[in-house]
């Protein structure tokens, strides 16, 4: 089961969907793997089953998950690649913008910021 801390900032179904996407991206849920059921999600996070269903449906709408009748929900073939592509599109808005804003607030110059980013990127790839 993936770990998920619900916060009050965004709608819960969104957080459920994001959490499952993260699990697919990290490989914790491989392609073809079964997703947790609505009941499991609902009980685990004490949320309304309708909310859990809505989160799962977000994945279905994107083609990340599909339903096997009477069995459950599964991660689709090519889900990871599709998610990477989607997240890449969101990357600038979700992360870089906040990064740049914080750098500006702290008075870090453009060059300095790029340098730091480059260093971090290289370190993690070691």
């Amino acid at each position, binding site marked *: 089961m993936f770990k998920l801390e619900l916060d*009050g*900032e965004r709608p819960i179904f969104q957080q459920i969907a994001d959490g499952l996407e993260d699990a697919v991206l990290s490989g914790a849920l491989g392609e073809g793997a079964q997703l947790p059921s*609505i009941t499991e999600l609902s*009980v685990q996070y*004490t*949320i309304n089953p309708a909310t859990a269903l809505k989160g799962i449906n977000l994945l279905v709408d994107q083609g990340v998950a599909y339903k096997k009748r009477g069995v459950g929900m599964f991660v689709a073939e090519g889900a990871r690649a599709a998610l990477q592509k989607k997240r890449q599109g969101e990357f600038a808005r979700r992360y870089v913008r906040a990064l740049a804003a914080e750098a500006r607030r702290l008075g870090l110059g453009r060059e300095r910021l790029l340098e730091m980013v480059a260093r971090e990127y290289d370190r993690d790839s070691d």
Partner: protein
Amino acid sequence: MAIQTDKICKSFGNVQALKGVSVSFEENKIYGLLGRNGAGKSTLLNVLANRMFADSGSFTVDGEPGGENDRAQSKLFLMSEQTLHPEGMRVGKAFQWTQAFYPSFDQGYALRLAGEFQLDTHTKMSGLSTGYRSIFKLILGLSVNVPYVLLDEPVLGLDANHRELFYRRLLEKYAENPFTVVLSTHLIEEVADLIEDVVIIKAGTVIRQESRESLLSQGYTVSGGAGAVEAYIQGRQVLGVDALGGLRTAYVLGEADKTAQSAKDLEFGAMDLQKLFIQLTNS
């Protein structure tokens, strides 16, 4: 299929507890019946469970009159703050009697839950603490298997572990075989994610009945420096403002206007049910 009330009024002496309450609890949904202490939540539930009579107004259960009607009443079960079992009755015996009155009651499940909650079935009602009285009645509510289960302050006196256990068992039961749950509580934070629809009652009047999502989507929070927030909320419908030093958080109805000139340097967030509730019911 629903419990539907029509302009229910109820007074105690010169206190008007319910002032024309019209709500409906539809099948297979989890409702939050939210209100401050004394708002009329318990009175409404007591009327629905035929324990009290409305002064005027009426209600139906699946289309038929609900008061003094055995068939309608056998479809619902109210777990109330008061314990209506004789003080000398033992828990196990009480389970047997619930079974006699409600053939759908699952005694095996009730005993299993009693084990999980460490409720000794040999204890008499008089020997149960507040928390264990709640647990005893919760077990009845979870095991009775009727279409409408009304829970009045269900977690009164329960510790965090037992509350969590209760919410989980409730959701399991619901997922396995959906039924209508009405959770009446003033502990909104705990049930906020659990409920699908919200009924907010204030001083005997229903002020909101809608899905939690649509209620929350009607507003947002905006926070930042006092000057910036005050500039932004000019001319907008504001439910209330929290102040923390020079910082302000405003609860605003409508769509967030992040492109507004005054929105610069402000942070926007989702409305939180508890905050919204407090703002709506502060008088």
